[in-house]
């Protein structure tokens, strides 16, 4: 079902750009969780047969990405009573342009000699690269702690897409790695966001500037 897979991946690429261009933090959180759900479905459509372990891993991944992480972040938003805008370091339009450049670069990159093989025909590798790069852009150009965590989650989504290529050969490693990464994401959100909020009455990392040269 390569067409269905590629359709989902195109939507994922589009969601990347939406996440970069959206000014409302709540929407960005929802976009990224939608991306996570789509990706969680991918292993089930990609490989013809479905094992119980794969189903379980996909289920846990989707529950974490679609329900637990977004609701924790939305709760933190509410509790912190912070402004609901994103506050980027660079404007939204430049962010989108950067993201589009990253996507184009990723699509070109896989046509390099030595990388072309059957997987390169599908969009898996370029979408993975593009999503990792967009995650990086989100991480480095946003001030709020929550936005940075969102960037981390997008980065993690990109790695997950690459993991799809390996999931048949190394199911355990891929599933364990991805779930552990998500767990770390939750750990970071819950502990630090709560404490930053309590100590600084804000989730803005611009307050975290006492340690510098």
């Amino acid at each position, binding site marked *: 079902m390569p067409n269905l897979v590629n359709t989902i991946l195109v939507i994922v690429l589009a969601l990347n750009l939406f996440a970069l261009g959206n000014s409302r933090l709540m929407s960005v959180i929802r976009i990224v969780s939608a991306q996570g759900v789509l990706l969680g479905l991918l292993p089930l459509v990609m490989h013809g047969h479905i094992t119980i372990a794969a189903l379980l891993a996909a289920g846990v991944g989707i529950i974490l990405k679609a329900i637990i992480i977004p609701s924790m972040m939305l709760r933190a938003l509410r509790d912190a009573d912070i402004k609901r805008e994103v506050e980027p370091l660079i404007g939204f339009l430049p962010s989108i342009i950067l993201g589009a450049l990253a996507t184009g670069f990723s699509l070109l990159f896989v046509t*390099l000699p*030595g*990388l072309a*093989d059957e*997987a390169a025909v599908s969009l898996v590798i370029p979408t993975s690269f593009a999503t*990792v790069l967009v995650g990086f852009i989100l*991480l480095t150009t946003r001030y709020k*702690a929550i936005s*940075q965590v969102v960037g*981390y989650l997008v*980065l*993690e989504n*990109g*790695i997950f897409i*690459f*993991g799809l*290529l*390996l999931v048949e*050969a*190394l199911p*355990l*490693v*891929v599933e*364990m*790695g991805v779930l*552990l*990464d998500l767990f*770390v*994401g939750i*750990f*970071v959100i819950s*502990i*630090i966001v709560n*404490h*930053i909020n309590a*100590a*600084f009455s804000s989730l803005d*990392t611009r307050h*975290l500037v*006492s*340690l510098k*040269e």
Partner: protein
Amino acid sequence: MAFAMILVPLLFAGFAALWPSNRWRPWVLPAGAVVYAVLAALVLVQPATNPAPEAWLALDALGRLMLLAVSTLFLFCSFYAVGYLKERASLNNRVFVSCFMAFAAVLSLVVWARHLGLLWVAIEAITLVSAPLIYFKKDKQSIEATWKYLLVGSVGIALALFGTFFLAYSRLAVAGEASLMLGELLANAASLSRPWLRAAFILLLVGYGTKIGLAPMHTWKPDAYGEAPGVVGALFAGGVTSCAFLAFLRVYQICVAAGETVFVSRLLLFMGLFSMLVAGLFMIGQRDFKRLLAYSSVEHMGILMIGLGIGGGALFGAMLHVVTNGLTKGVLFLTAGNIDRAYGSKNTENVRGALKRLPVSAGLFLAGFLAITGSPPFGPFVSEFTILTGAVQSGRWLTAGLYLLLLLLVFIGMGKTVLKVTQGEVPPDLGPGRPRERLLTLLPAIGFLALSLLLGLYIPPPLGGLLRAAARLLEHPL
């Protein structure tokens, strides 16, 4: 035995979490560390065997070396931690003691792992158990430091996972099957897909390099080392970084076995020299002596990378430097912690005349500074000199010259701050009295310095054999 070495520290950690008394809980650390050291000694006296290719947990010479180095560090630090927590009796130490103890379990996992996915999990676990150690004081600065550590560290670890996937794919793309078992990857290294292998190396260098603390991914280090208690700094500078370094060495082994030595060594020499340069520049005029030590750690991780990049005889030097750097960082961080607590500050504006106020700690701090900057007769001199000899023997004159120049830069930068701390008159507002120096916070530092001195004068034959075996595994991984 591997399972015992993972489970025993976890049992002690669980025990510490349940123990009700804040006052007596810290003693779980030395008890656990002694048991752990005995187990490690039992493992290390057994003759080395070649790990079976299908074993997930097995110990080769590299693993044995790291186990020896880090379990020694852990043992000494655990006694210091008791003295430290006594002086911080008002803070709840339940999480601190449990996480400190759990670090030993993760260390076991790192040294035994023969599966790169498992190794990655272990490095991720290090991030999780070490973050609460930085956060111990729970003030604004330590929150900031923990936040930076977790965010930068998690991104680094995520990139390492990406690189690990690339590595698996480099075999899948050509052979149609994948494996992350070290033995299998080494045996099939020559047939791996080159572009994917190189991309994997770069991502793993950046990913594990973040945990090692190479410039420019070192940004979490000064904050974390500066705000964490001194004993945690020692555990990071000699333990966490060594574990991440071992994870990186596995990748290095695969690349060497694949015949990518030229590509790898060019990148490593660049990263190493760049780390030394950045560290040296930030040391000049550094007023915070704990951040100074963090930059020193960046510098020494750079030296390790240079040793790997040169190869040949320098590999022995790099292996020895892992040990000597860990021991000497132990002296520096533990005594820096003592000075920090006695003055209530870690800034040279307030801290002067430490030799008069804390003669033993300050004397050890000064000796540790001389040792870490490569003065004879201490251990780091021997290891740094071996790396220099390796560079000259392989005809890398430019590298050797830059290496010497940067060592000089670091000596000047570090010396200025260290001398400001130790020399001069005690600021008058502190009063004439001398704070009492506890044996528990002095003896571990003295032990570290003695071992560092010993390794500078004489390398015991069993250790020498282990170092040579480890260097051989790096030069000829098969």
